[in-house]
Every structure is written in structure tokens, then in C-alpha cells.
């Protein structure tokens, strides 16, 4: 881990790529896939898929487990939940209260008329 990159930063960076999001979707459909299985799901070289998986693992979005000669990959949705709790909730709450303020403001103006 780089010192200047926060955990959230790694997650946002990992999610900012369509191939990596596709890999997460494939794991969401069926968890615990091997590199070979994932490789057949995307139009990309084995090396390319490995690189993307590495970024996902560094962000904690994918956890891998040794199983015999192969490594199985699991989707770990916890970092996305943490981002949801840390960021999304905060802004959607404000959004809702801002709309409520707007509504009462508009209704007050109506009364003045």
C-alpha cells in the first residue's frame, strides 16, 4: 500500500475501470472462480486479467484463496459497503433534507401570495 493512497482511494480507483467492474459482476454471479474461468469471461489476455485482479485484491474487493494448484477468487463487498456508509448515505441524506427545505420554502412563498 502506498502511504498517500487511502483505502477509499484504492477502492474508487479499482472501480474506475469497466473491465474490473465486469470481473466483479462475474464473481457476483458466481463466486470463487479461478483465473482460467475469469479469463474466459473477458476479451483479454491472462496477463491482463491477472493485473486487474491484482488491483481488485489490493483494494480488498477481491479475496483469493488457494485451492489445490489454483487460486479461487471471491467478491468481497465489504469495502463498497464502507464507502456507502461513509459517503453515499451522507450525501443522499443531505439531498433529501435539501428537497424538504425546498418544499417548505416553496409552500411558504405560496402562502404569501
Amino acid at each position, binding site marked *: 500500500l502506498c502511504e498517500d493512497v487511502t483505502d477509499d482511494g484504492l477502492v474508487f480507483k479499482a472501480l474506475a475501470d469497466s473491465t474490473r467492474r465486469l470481473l466483479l459482476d462475474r464473481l457476483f454471479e458466481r463466486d470463487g472462480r479461478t483465473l482460467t474461468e475469469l479469463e474466459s469471461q473477458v476479451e483479454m489476455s491472462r496477463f491482463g486479467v491477472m493485473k486487474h485482479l491484482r488491483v481488485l485484491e489490493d483494494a480488498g474487493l477481491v479475496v483469493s484463496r488457494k485451492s489445490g494448484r489454483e487460486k479461487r477468487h*471471491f467478491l*468481497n463487498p465489504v469495502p463498497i459497503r*464502507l464507502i456507502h456508509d461513509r459517503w453515499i448515505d451522507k450525501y443522499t441524506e443531505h439531498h433529501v433534507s435539501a428537497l424538504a427545505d425546498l418544499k417548505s420554502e416553496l409552500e411558504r412563498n405560496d402562502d404569501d401570495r
Partner: protein
Amino acid sequence: MTIADETAETKNRLEKQVEKVYEIYIKTTPDRLWKAITDPEMRSKYSFGNRIKSDWKPGSRYEATNPGAPGVLVEGENLEVDPPRRLVQTMRALWGEDVKREGTSRVTWEIEPIGDDSCRLTVTHDQLREGANDQLYGGWPMILSGLKTLLETGELLTTPGSLLYANPTTTAGRR
């Protein structure tokens, strides 16, 4: 791929059991983390208000109840109890007819100290049927996020899960 191959693959997939892995880093000690998992008071603060009761001996039973819902919601056996590192439990979800049909699955909690101030907590939920009802395991991210907030800030996290039984008129039988 021939039809025979596809049939074999489908059969294989249906018989295969599913494993879910959840991992989180928490700034705390293994002892505090173990306590937060096994202490009914602390556990209820991030686990949908559910109170877990057990003597935490290998082979003994545990059950989870909730003041906002009738009956036992989750039960199982403690297969391995190795504080503050490893806890393996069977799990039977009882909060609804649909989840009851899923039968018994297994939950493994593993605590690993990282550096001198943090822990990696891994929850592995396995022996799940392929295509099992996602209520069985869908709550883990919320639970673990709440556990992290509790241990790192001492505060409670409001999530859809924490509000599940907040209204006394709610009788929905979920975890």
C-alpha cells in the same frame, strides 16, 4: 460444448456448495474484537439488534433472539472456539419459512493481528447451497461495517439492518 458436457456442468454446479468470503480491517486488538463478537450487548449493537446467547464452549449451542421479533432467529453449534483467533459455527436461519428451508450452513470467524494496532477479520460463510437465499449471507457487509464503526469510534451505525426491528410493529422475520 456438447449437450452431455453442459448437463454434466449444470449437475456439477447444482451439487457444488457455495462459499462467501468477507474481509475487513479494523483498528482494534484481537481481544476487543473477540469480545465484540461474543458479548451479547456489544454484538446487538451492530447485528440488527440481535442478542446472541452461548457459553462459547466447543460443541455447545448458541442462539440469537431479538426484542423486536418473536422466537429464535438464528441457532447453531460452536464447532471450534479458539479465542481470540478463530470461531467456527454452524448456522440455521429461522427468521422466515424461506430461509428455514436452506438448512444448516457454516460460519468461520478468523482474527489476524496486522501491525501493532489493527486486525484483519475474515468471515467465511460456506456450506451454502448454490443459489441459496441471499438473506442468509446478504447482511454480512452491513454487520461488519457496523462492527468496524463500533470498535473504532464507539458509535452506532445506522443502516437499513439496524432499523429492521427498530419499529415495534415490524414483525418481518428477518435476521
